[in-house]
């Protein structure tokens, strides 16, 4: 069934482009079938899965590589499916109203469906390599979705940035998966978690995996791609860049942390440190944004940092709080993004300096925004408050020493910032006083058209869920508890609660709200302070200079390696031959015994003659002299053939050599008498050195190769069968025309092609005045 649901996504993704031409924006409703069916099926499985019995399905794919289509729906996967498919279906419904009919909409719906399927695959896959495959599929579909408005340069650049950052991280993650998988002896995720391997190699592998997770989940210093990805249409931002894809990294860290956090000393400082830093940087930057969508993007970065702190600790209570935050964040952040989409769609601007009085014009949307933002800020009676309480409570009792105290302080500070930018979002977007027409724009607000009710329903649905779960924690408690229990059985015992009594935790919550309110009141001062800090080095700058440097390096390397000179190319190839097989020959082999100087004195003499002729050919200054030396080499070799017992070869050699000399003479009579003095490109000394090296290599190789005749030669059979089977006495001839006749046919074909080429070169090459 699991594979079937993935298949449904694929089928709808492929069909969407054709459907889109006929249905227009309604194609989204058809595509919503895939996530909708998945969510419905997951709901039917919920009871059993949350009790701890996972649903699995294994289809063998590449058994030799340990690559199976292993799918597994456990509690945590169910929690993620609820987000990916549940919120996914809501977003698809929302998209039907967000988009007006336009070309390419079907393709867009198809890619969005493909993304939903890929993300589903990431959370269902129970094989590291399969996770990687789906992981990269989400990167690719995300690239296509961010760059949907491909006529805009900024969208293309943002898409490229996203895929470069997450793709590079993905490659590192693959290497990490291989290291961990090899150490564990299995690529099965549940198998590895049940019996985690240890050691330095596994540690290195985990760092690489974390690198991949941090790029995907936009952790510092890789956070910059996420705000840039806001170039995507708003439904994409609401789905990929808040509720699902960016949580893939969080998902992976959550899976690994309970098994590996305690065993590796670097894990907690690294993961929790990055998380806190991300939470603070994101919150701080969010306070500076004027674009509502960018504000949310930085807010998402901040919240992702929060989640990483919680799920990355590998401590049961924190894991539970993290699972609660994942659910809460999915609900409120998707709702907030949808609200931004509605504002943008109706008012054609998202600048909070320009918007004014929208709250009175569309009170329903404003209410949704207020509820969602309040949940994000941790206001009581909302789901966000419950998760934040759980986080404070767990961090207070985590016994992590100084690091734990720092993490708690960071999380509280980050939550204060969260309250502040949440208020900035609601007041700026829907308040009355903020729109003073800054930047020379007239305020926009009171006269914008009201949105269609169905356009608001999806966001309102999520807001209602936030309230219901906040007031009655029992609604969502089984999902969170079952999810956390699948990660760490001890985490499943915790429960969400509205009221913990008058504890330190409650004090921290009150402190957060109060300090946040102060930041809101003093917003002007904060902005002035931030303005003074602007210009600090940013991660984007590092990214673009790294990219420019890479391109410069590629230019230079190409200019050096591909300089157009044939002798240089050849020299590089020959030096490689000397360096790799040459070194092996030198170090790994010994000269065989049984070496004789020569078969006969005559052979030595003839070899000497050939040697002299060859050297003469190399250093002759005149063309004719060089050709005559070449002829000398050829005839000498023919004599050597005779001595070696090969009269057929000698005969052929004599004929061919004579013919070759004739052709040489025919061509050379046109060419200058002497060779041009050589242009010293490679240098005479280098040429001689390379040539000498090749000569020594081949000589040594020929001795070793001749000494390697240890097996019975196949030609024994040829000698026996020549007369009875082929009726020939000359075995060489029989091999050529009978035993290996097809080889000879190939050889004749080559000669024919060469002859055709020669004829056409000579004919076509005639100068105009020679014709007629």
């Amino acid at each position: 069934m699991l594979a079937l649901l993935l298949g449904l996504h694929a089928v709808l993704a492929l069909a969407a482009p054709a459907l889109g031409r006929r249905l227009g924006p309604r194609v989204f409703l058809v595509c919503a079938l895939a996530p909708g069916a998945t969510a419905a099926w997951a709901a039917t499985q919920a009871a059993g899965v949350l009790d701890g019995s996972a649903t699995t399905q294994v289809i063998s794919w590449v058994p030799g590589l340990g690559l199976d289509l292993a799918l597994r729906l456990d509690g945590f996967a169910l929690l993620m499916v609820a987000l990916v498919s549940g919120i996914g279906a809501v977003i698809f419904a929302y998209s039907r109203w967000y988009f007006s009919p336009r070309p390419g909409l079907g393709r867009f719906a198809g890619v969005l469906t493909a993304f939903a399927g890929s993300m589903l695959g990431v959370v269902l896959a129970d094989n590291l390599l399969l996770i990687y495959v789906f992981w990269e599929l989400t990167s690719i579909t995300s690239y296509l979705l961010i760059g949907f408005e491909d006529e805009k340069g900024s969208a293309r650049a943002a898409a490229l940035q996203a895929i470069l950052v997450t793709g590079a991280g993905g490659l590192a993650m693959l290497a990490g998966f291989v290291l961990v998988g090899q150490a564990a002896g299995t690529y099965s995720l549940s198998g590895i978690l049940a019996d985690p391997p240890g050691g330095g190699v596994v540690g290195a592998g985990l760092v690489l995996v974390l690198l991949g997770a941090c790029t995907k989940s936009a952790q510092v210093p890789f956070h910059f791609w996420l705000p840039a990805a806001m170039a995507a249409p708003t439904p994409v931002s609401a789905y990929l860049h808040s509720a699902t894809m960016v949580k893939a990294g969080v998902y992976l860290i959550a899976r690994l942390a309970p098994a590996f956090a305690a065993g590796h000393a670097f894990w907690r400082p690294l993961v929790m440190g990055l998380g806190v830093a991300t939470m603070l940087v994101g919150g701080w930057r969010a306070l500076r944004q004027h674009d509502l969508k960018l504000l949310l993007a930085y807010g998402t970065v901040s919240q992702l940092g929060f989640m990483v702190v919680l799920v990355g600790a590998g401590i049961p209570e924190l894991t539970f709080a993290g699972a609660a935050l994942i659910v809460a964040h999915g609900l409120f952040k998707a709702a907030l993004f949808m609200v931004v989409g509605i504002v943008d769609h109706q008012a054609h601007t998202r600048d909070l300096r320009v918007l004014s009085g929208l709250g009175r014009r569309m009170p329903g949307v404003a209410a949704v925004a207020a509820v969602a933002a309040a949940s994000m800020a941790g206001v009581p009676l909302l789901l966000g408050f419950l998760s934040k309480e759980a986080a404070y409570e767990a961090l207070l009792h985590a016994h992590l020493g100084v690091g734990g105290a720092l993490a708690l302080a960071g999380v509280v500070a980050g939550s204060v910032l969260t309250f502040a930018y949440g208020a900035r979002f609601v007041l700026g977007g829907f308040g009355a006083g903020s729109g003073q027409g800054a930047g020379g724009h007239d305020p926009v607000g009171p006269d914008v058209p009201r949105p269609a009710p169905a356009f608001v329903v999806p966001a309102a649905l999520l807001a209602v869920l936030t309230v219901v779960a906040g007031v009655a924690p029992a609604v969502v408690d089984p999902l969170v508890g079952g999810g956390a229990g699948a990660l760490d059985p001890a985490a499943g015992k915790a429960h969400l609660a509205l009221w913990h009594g008058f504890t330190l935790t409650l004090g921290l919550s009150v402190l957060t709200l109060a300090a946040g309110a102060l930041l809101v009141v003093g917003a002007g001062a904060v902005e002035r302070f931030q303005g003074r800090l602007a210009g600090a080095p940013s991660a984007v700058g590092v990214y673009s200079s790294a990219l420019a440097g890479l391109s410069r390096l590629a230019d230079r390397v190409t200019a050096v390696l591909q300089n157009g000179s044939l002798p240089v190319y050849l020299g590089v190839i020959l030096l490689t031959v000397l360096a790799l097989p040459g070194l092996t020959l030198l170090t790994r082999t010994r000269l065989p015994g049984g070496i004789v100087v020569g078969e006969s004195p005559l052979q030595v003499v003839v070899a000497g003659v050939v040697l002299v002729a060859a050297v003469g050919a190399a250093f002759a200054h005149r063309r004719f002299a060089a050709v005559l030396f070449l002829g000398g080499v050829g005839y000498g070799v023919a004599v050597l053939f005779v001595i070696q017992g090969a009269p057929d070869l000698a005969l052929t050699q004599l004929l061919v050599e004579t013919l070759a000399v004739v052709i040489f003479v025919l061509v050379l009579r046109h060419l200058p008498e002497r060779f041009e003095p050589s242009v010293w490109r490679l240098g005479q000394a280098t040429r001689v050195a390379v040539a000498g090296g090749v000569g020594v290599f081949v000589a040594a190789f020929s001795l070793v190769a001749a000494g390697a005749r240890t097996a019975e030669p196949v030609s024994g059979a040829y000698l026996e069968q020549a007369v009875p089977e082929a009726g020939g006495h000359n075995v060489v001839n029989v091999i050529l025309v009978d035993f290996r006749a097809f080889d000879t046919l190939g050889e004749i074909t080559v000669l024919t092609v060469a002859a055709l080429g020669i004829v056409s070169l000579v004919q076509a090459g005639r100068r105009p005045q020679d014709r007629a």
Partner: protein
Amino acid sequence: MILVLAVLVGVLYAVGTYLLLQRTLTRVVIGLAIMGHGANLLLLLAGGRAGRAPIVDGPGGGAFADPLPQALALTAIVITFGITAFLLALAYRSWLLRSDDEVEDDVEDRRIARLARRHDEARRHDEDDS
């Protein structure tokens, strides 16, 4: 395992390599032909010691020379001849069109290298400006 032939094969390869690294097409062709001779001898050398010509019921006594490397070398001789003739036709055409037989640099590759240099200069220019 005949030392003198092994040395000769080495020298033929060295001379062939040296000539292949030249820019005159005629020398390149001669280099290829000489390397071809070296390859043929190498094939024969790999067939072991000398012996009686592999002709059943032929004259002489003793063991036969291995006929298989001979068949390979025979093919190689003929193919080398075909390549040599083809390259000579190319040299002839080069002479017809340009009155010499130099192997030029690959124009397209030179263009890429020039582009890289121009990019570098443009960047330096930009940095000077700023």
